[in-house]
């Protein structure tokens, strides 16, 4: 069963130049206990999608609509107060990008992890015990509790950020580039920790990343985002082994393979301006396979069978 069902989610920001289409009609399902990777490059709207799911919206929101169902319950109908009290951190939590900057440098680690508990007036000794339990869960020793962030290495800070996300026992954790600032050796340690937590706590993940190889290390499903939309969605096997969208194909070919002598290729050009999107397919200006129809009409996400969906006119039988 899907723990999270997102249908036609939109999030536009208002700017002097016009609305930015950050999340532009995104739909997906997250089966309980699984991980969905949202892979996209800068400006694809992947981080905005995470913020939209947690209703952490900036002031300049222009449009925020659609349906987010958690365990069958429609979250878009909840008031901000209800959402804050019942959903955020309790059901859906987020581990933010850049562990270096997320933590408050002048507050001890344990108080930062315990913050949501203390806000709801949990007695300090109980909150402290919960923090120590969480620190052990993420592979840190208890005495990290009394340290300050600057005394920790990058990998340790990332573990603290994870512990903080888990403090209220959420069911869904949104991971936003949890390892992008870390060295490969530390990255591998964090990825193994995420796998273990998923297994042991039955967590469901939305893993936001620009790195499709890294996503394959954790994710059962992959959604490829481009210019605010999902252009390909399926199981990791479908997307990685039988990619259908030219963007997905290009992305996979651009990864330098260690065990191959074939030079990586690249996708020419740059993503479109999110305020001034081209008509038709948003990828067509960079697409090696674009044809007339791509200019005329935007393609819809079409099922290819077995849950594999692709937003491309090539699949509409030319």
């Amino acid at each position, binding site marked *: 069963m899907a723990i999270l069902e997102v249908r036609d989610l939109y999030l536009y920001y208002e700017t002097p130049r016009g609305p930015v289409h950050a999340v532009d009609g995104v739909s997906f399902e997250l089966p309980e206990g699984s991980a969905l990777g949202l892979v996209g490059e*800068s400006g694809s709207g992947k981080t905005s999608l995470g913020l939209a799911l947690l209703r952490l919206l900036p002031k300049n929101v222009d449009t925020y609509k659609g349906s987010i169902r958690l365990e069958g319950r429609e979250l878009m109908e909840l008031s901000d107060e209800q959402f804050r009290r019942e959903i955020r951190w309790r059901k859906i939590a987020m581990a933010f990008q850049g562990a270096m900057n997320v933590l408050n440098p002048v507050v001890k680690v344990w108080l930062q992890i315990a913050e949501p508990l203390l806000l709801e007036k949990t007695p300090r000794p109980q909150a402290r015990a919960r923090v120590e339990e969480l620190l052990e869960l993420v592979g840190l020793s208890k005495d990290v509790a009394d340290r300050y962030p600057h005394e920790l290495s990058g990998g340790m800070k990332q573990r603290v950020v994870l512990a903080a996300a888990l403090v209220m026992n959420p069911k869904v954790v949104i991971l936003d580039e949890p390892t992008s600032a870390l060295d490969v050796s530390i990255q591998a340690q964090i990825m193994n920790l995420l796998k273990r937590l998923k297994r042991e706590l039955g967590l469901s993940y939305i893993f936001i990343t620009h790195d499709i190889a890294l996503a394959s290390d954790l994710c059962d499903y992959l959604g490829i985002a481009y210019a605010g939309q999902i252009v390909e969605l399926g199981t990791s096997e479908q997307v990685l082994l039988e990619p259908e969208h030219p963007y997905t194909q290009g992305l996979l070919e651009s990864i330098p393979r260690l065990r191959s002598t074939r030079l990586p290729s690249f996708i020419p050009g740059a993503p479109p301006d999110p305020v001034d999107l081209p008509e038709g397919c948003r990828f067509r200006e960079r697409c090696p396979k674009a044809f007339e129809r791509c200019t005329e009409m935007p393609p819809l996400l079409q099922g290819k069978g077995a849950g594999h969906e692709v937003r491309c006119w090539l699949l509409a039988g030319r």
Partner: protein
Amino acid sequence: MATTHEDTLTAERAEPAFGDREPLVQLQDVKAHFTLRRGIFVSKAVVKAVDGITLEIARGETVALVGESGSGKTTLGRISLRLIEPTEGRVLFDGQDISHVPEGQLLRFRRRAQAVFQDPYASLNNYMTVAQIVEEPLVIHKIGNREERAARVREALDAVRLRPPEEFLSRFPHRLSGGQRQRVAIARALVLDPEYLVADEPVSMVDASSRAEILLVLKDRQEDAGTAILYITHDIATARHFAHRIGVMYLGHLVELGPADRVIDNPLHPYTRLLLEAVPEPDPQNRLKERSIIPGEPPSPANTPPGCPFHPRCPEFMKGTCEAAEPEWKEIEPGHFVACYLY
């Protein structure tokens, strides 16, 4: 230590690094030690950022320096550009010792050696147009008149595939993507026709789909102009494809150096092997298994372990040997060197 480096030099003389070409850049047993004040009354600590490295880069050759943060790769690149004066050892450029030449006399060298840095959001002035940014080095070095400079700017933009150049000349950096910004930074470095280029993590902040384009631009340029390139990266997979040789750094030491294919296909140092295993490749099978990891975290260069710097994390650690003294630099196959007691 002394014998180690003599070995290196003789070995490299016997087997030239890159064909028979003269090395353009020679680093000879360079060290960069910084003193770190820990507190007002507390003793000072010495950070050994680079601790005795010998490396040569030939014209037309790309040498990749691979390593994690704190390995000293960036410091070594800066020493080779004389942005940092080495504490010990010599830096030779085209046969001339520039280790301690005063800055005022380095102007000609500054023109012949250029750098591209990691962050294209920080390295470009947001209040200058692309044309002004790329032209600036020519103005500083008083090269050409206005028309000649304009022509060179257009050529440089074309070389980095910002095409047509006219479309980019009057743009400001904030209207460019990360990849386009980085190409402007490269155009600015290439406009002087440098003989030596240090590219320090030039693609780590660029979208994956644009990385190869930037690396291919550098490769093309090298093939046309014979530029020597020092490519500093944490990404060993790109090093395989874009460098002739790979040097693996750990805590200020070079632990392995060899032809790129050999370092990847026949890694000798346990650290290199672990680094290679830690690289994720897009494979749906990955999620079903644990990643192999390098245990622990890299220690700080302010507190380097005795003996082999990698011994506290090494799965092949041999007690009584590895921590006792630094391993010698040995040539295991032609041009492929390692510092490890396993050999």
